């Protein structure tokens, strides 16, 4: 096996093919969390800097790689080498070449450095001239879900407006997000709107972003935060000014109460398919993925006809099963502060921190056995001294096997109906 130029060309071809792959497979860069499909000024600035780095390094790569390839082919030994083969010139180097290349490298870096510096200041905080126009919210990370707080929207007697896992913001306006955490480090990342910033304990971080147009955006916790970090997701929904105002208006209202109508139970309801699903079977339907924003909008209004009996039953069960110790449903019985606020849960498009689409079967799965859906979640094992579904020995941290909350199939159907009525 002597050296063969054929192998060499093949390697070059392989490298080129790899470089060409993304072009062949355009899909690789256009997912819902693509950093190329930017929808706001912050993400756009960051992408521009990225392109600068790509161009500069690609040019250098092409130059250096060509010289390297050329040298390897040109100067390969012809014929076998042994101790008698005349040796090549034992040159030791050339300081001018060295200095020139160092200078060129520095020059190349200046190209990258200038836009980098500009962008560092730009992306750090809302530009001064737009400060007044900026909308401010708080995002809080918890193991393993997000809470969003609207300090600007105070509700009489109930503090600020809270939502879970879905952040609704006004479009076309800068939004300044204060980042907080209640336990470990998390990070707030909505790739299409901007890069991530960490939520650090004992540190008041913030970021800003802006959605140019109304839309529905995928977000993700981007700092490893324990067992279910991989499925700690969230959504950002940007609305036009009026829609946003309307949304806020509705959110400030207490939970929707459905008065029981003495109808015969509607068989059509609660008859969804509950064939047992695997842990982590796909979370979203194809229809949802195709038009998420529309799907979200559709959820904002109550269903035309609801099974009021089931809903009433569900409300009772929600209390009886102790769900209220952790969850709060403003205006209804819930008072807990350790879990997502469910006051308008029916109007949310996702469930369990973006893991699943908020459909009835999915919610059913979650309520029957949350651990099957999201291993280790705090609803299952309890949080801040509140007992969850299962008992965990605080000393050994092992499960004792004691059950606190058990929800059977029929009960779950009622609770699902109830929670989905909360628009």
């Amino acid at each position: 096996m002597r050296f063969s130029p054929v192998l060499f060309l093949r390697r070059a071809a392989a490298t080129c093919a790899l470089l060409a792959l993304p072009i062949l497979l355009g899909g690789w860069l256009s997912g819902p969390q693509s950093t190329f499909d930017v929808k706001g000024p912050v993400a756009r600035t960051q992408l521009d800097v990225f392109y600068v780095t790509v161009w500069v390094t690609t040019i250098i790569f092409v130059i250096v790689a060509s010289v390297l390839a050329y040298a390897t082919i040109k100067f390969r030994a012809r014929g076998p080498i042994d101790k008698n083969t005349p040796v090549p010139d034992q040159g030791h180097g050339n300081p001018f070449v060295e200095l020139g290349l160092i200078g060129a490298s520095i020059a190349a870096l200046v190209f990258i450095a200038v836009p980098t510096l500009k962008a560092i200041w730009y992306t750090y905080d809302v530009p001064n001239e737009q400060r007044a126009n900026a909308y401010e919210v708080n995002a809080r990370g918890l193991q393993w879900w997000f809470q969003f707080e609207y300090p600007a929207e105070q509700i009489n007697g109930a503090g600020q407006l809270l939502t879970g896992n879905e952040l609704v913001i006004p479009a076309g306006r800068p939004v300044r997000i204060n980042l907080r955490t209640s336990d470990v480090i998390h990070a707030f990342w909505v790739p299409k709107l901007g890069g991530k910033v960490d939520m650090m304990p004992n540190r008041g971080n913030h970021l800003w972003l802006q959605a140019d147009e109304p839309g529905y955006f995928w977000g993700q916790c981007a700092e490893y935060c324990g067992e279910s970090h991989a499925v700690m997701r969230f959504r950002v929904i940007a609305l036009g000014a009026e829609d946003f105002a309307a949304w806020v208006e509705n959110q400030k209202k207490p939970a929707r109460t459905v008065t029981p109508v003495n109808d015969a139970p509607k068989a059509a309801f609660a008859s969804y398919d509950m064939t047992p699903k695997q842990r982590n079977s796909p979370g979203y339907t194809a229809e949802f993925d195709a038009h998420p924003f529309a799907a979200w909008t559709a959820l904002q209004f109550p269903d035309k006809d609801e099974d009021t009996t089931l809903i009433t039953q569900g409300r009772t069960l929600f209390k009886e099963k102790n769900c209220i110790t952790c969850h709060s449903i403003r205006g209804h019985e819930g008072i807990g502060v350790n879990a997502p606020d469910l006051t308008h849960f029916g109007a949310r498009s996702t469930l369990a921190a973006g893991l699943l689409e908020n459909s009835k079967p999915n919610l059913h799965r979650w309520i029957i056995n949350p651990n099957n859906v999201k291993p280790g979640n705090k609803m299952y094992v309890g949080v801040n001294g509140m007992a969850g579904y299962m008992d965990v020995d605080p000393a050994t941290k092992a499960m004792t096997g004691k059950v606190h909350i058990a929800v059977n199939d029929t009960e779950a159907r009622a609770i699902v109906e109830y929670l989905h009525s909360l628009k």
Partner: protein
Amino acid sequence: MSSDATETNQEHAHADDGKFHLFVQIAMILAVITGVEIVLIYLPVVKWLVVSLLVVLSLVKFLLVIFWFMHLKFDKLFCTILFFIGLVLAGGTVAALLSIFSTTDGVPLTAQAIYAERAAATK
């Protein structure tokens, strides 16, 4: 460097018996500086001045010990270089850390403010 070394060697041969006194004198200086430092903190002088004085004085002590007690002055230069690589890097790192932790835009909220916020949240 080599001429340097022989010079110190001769000097050392001379000073050999003098070292005892030299060391005792240095120890006395160290003790005195320590005394001065203690007095300094009670003096009614502006803070920055005291702080800088303290830093300078302990630096002097530091250097006295490493160059005389630890013989750096009499040893090959390389020992000094070796130790100073560590010393300078450590000093630089400490300085960098302290300044990172004191930038105001790096910590948008002070620890106190976070406490206040947390207290408000639990109210």
